[in-house]
């Protein structure tokens, strides 16, 4: 490679590096989040690393949040990338219970050098958080219930998370009530006597056998009575291989090839393959036309629209009966559903006469005003 070529290549690379340095602006911090439960006089030393896109970028480090007076930072400024230490020294007591957040921010210092012309530049800042949880006085529970959708006969996993956020330990008997969608109790599941230590999280689980359940939507309510009652509610669905026809095109214009939509809703907790519909339209008992729609796959509980096209030329205005049959497959099992519906065929209003008449009136008015204008000008000249 000649010296000239090498020079130009170096120049190009140099320019590219400068361009990239200009167009990228980045900042990061590790660790992003740390949680502590409050302890009187708790002391912690946390090492942070900061990285940025430029080795000469000045980054200022600061603390924010309602407990910021309890942290000290060993470096207030970093150039490019580097590390610093935060020392957390909590007091003997914090009055307000609940979650407190301290933000540790690394902020790129803005270069005040102006660009020519109207320019908008950017800078970036990142904030890592230290969360301090201060327990509530006495006993206090937060609970959260999670469930999953299943198909009939499968087990529903009921997972109860109990978070003791008070200063005192608790012994309680958690239970989960299963209700139908119209709020009728079906059964109650007991999770046994449970000891929950102050400021600790406990995960409990129970399974629900759905063999004797009907398909549909259900409500699960977890409750833990510890003097007060902590409650968490969630819904789950028990599915079966079924597609519901929720809607369809009810009115169609008579004007050649027209489209016919059918809305489908899956009640199955797995994918349904190749769902399509066959539509038969009748005049009294005689079949006038039949056509098939597009085919589609439906994910668990998904709603989708399938579409078919047919010629409407031979129809006259009126209401026709139609049979919509949806054919589908779930786990190699084929099923179908048929729905008898009514479709109204209407003629599209012919607006040609109105347009022609309107256009003629418009032209007459325009000609009238032009003529008037010309006559006025002619009079003025005389």
């Amino acid at each position, binding site marked *: 490679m000649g010296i000239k070529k090498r020079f130009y290549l170096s120049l190009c690379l140099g320019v590219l590096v400068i361009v990239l340095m*200009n167009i990228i602006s980045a900042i990061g911090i590790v660790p*992003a*989040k740390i949680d502590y439960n409050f302890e009187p006089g708790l002391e912690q030393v946390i090492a942070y690393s900061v990285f940025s896109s430029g080795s000469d970028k000045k980054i200022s480090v600061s603390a924010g949040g309602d407990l910021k007076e309890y942290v000290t930072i060993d470096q207030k400024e970093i150039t490019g990338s580097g590390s610093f230490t935060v020392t957390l020294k909590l007091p003997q007591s914090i009055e307000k219970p609940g979650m407190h957040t301290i933000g540790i921010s690394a902020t790129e210092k803005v270069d005040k050098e102006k660009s020519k012309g*109207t320019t908008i530049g950017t800078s*970036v800042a*990142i904030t890592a*958080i230290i969360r301090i949880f201060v327990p509530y006085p006495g006993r206090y529970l937060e609970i959260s219930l999670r469930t999953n959708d299943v198909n009939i006969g499968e087990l529903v996993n009921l997972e109860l998370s109990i978070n003791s956020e008070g200063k005192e330990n608790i012994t309680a008997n958690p239970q989960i009530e299963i209700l139908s969608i119209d709020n009728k109790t079906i059964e109650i599941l007991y999770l046994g006597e449970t000891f929950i230590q102050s400021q600790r999280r406990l995960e409990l689980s129970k399974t629900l056998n759905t063999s004797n359940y009907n398909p549909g939507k259900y409500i699960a309510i977890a409750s833990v009575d510890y003097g007060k009652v902590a409650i968490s509610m969630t819904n789950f669905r028990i599915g079966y291989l079924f597609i519901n026809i929720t809607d369809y095109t009810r009115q169609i214009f008579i004007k050649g090839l027209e489209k016919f939509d059918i809305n489908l809703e899956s009640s199955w907790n797995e994918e349904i393959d190749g769902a399509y519909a066959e539509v038969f339209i009748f005049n009294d008992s005689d079949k006038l036309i039949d056509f098939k729609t597009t085919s589609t796959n439906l994910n668990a509980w998904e709603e989708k629209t399938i579409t078919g096209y047919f010629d409407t030329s031979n129809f006259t205005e009126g209401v026709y009966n139609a049979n919509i049959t949806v054919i589908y497959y779930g786990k190699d099992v084929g099923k179908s559903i048929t729905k008898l519906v009514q479709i109204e065929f209407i003629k599209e209003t012919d607006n040609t006469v109105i347009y022609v008449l309107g256009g003629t009136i418009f032209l007459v008015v325009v000609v009238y005003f032009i003529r008037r204008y010309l006559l006025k000008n002619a009079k003025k000249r005389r």
Partner: protein
Amino acid sequence: MKSTNLLMIVAVVAVSLAAINLIVTINKVGDIQALTGYATDTATANLTVQGAASITFVISNISWGSGYVNESPITFAVLDTVGNTINGTNWATVSTGLTLRNDGNNDVTINLSADKNSTQFIGGTAGNGPIFQWNVSNAEEGSCSNGGTNNATNITSFTDANITSQLACWNLSNDAASDLLRIDLRLEIPQDAAPGAKGVTITANATTI
């Protein structure tokens, strides 16, 4: 004929020896575990993935260059980053907004602030006065959740940019396929704005969720 028979006997012996050799070799290979003191054990490998918060302005600079407001009944020019330069001369047309990416492994909240307001940045009084606005949208589907409706930011139309921090995205995902925000800008420059270079810096502040 005799020599043929002899050759046949030699061949049979050779093949037999080869077969015996093969059987012995296979047998020895099977015994290697015992011969080499083969032993089984289990080991565990532990590691901790640290949470990192990181953001990048992948497009960090917008410049319309130099220009002026046309003399016309309209007393201001409009510049934006969605391809409009209205009633201005020489300013470039810009069709790309600022683009911000979440590079960390935590979701973050994004707040925006500017180091100048519209008066400090642009100046002038003609028309509607100086206007400096921003609008935030998902550059990748599902990047931002605003805490209510999914897949939406917290600034969904052009809103006055401000020196005080403004919530732009309540939850910017760290998923590589949906971690990109676009920040579009719109300026109205009055005809009587003082000439000279005009610059402003927008700061994106990401806070770990």
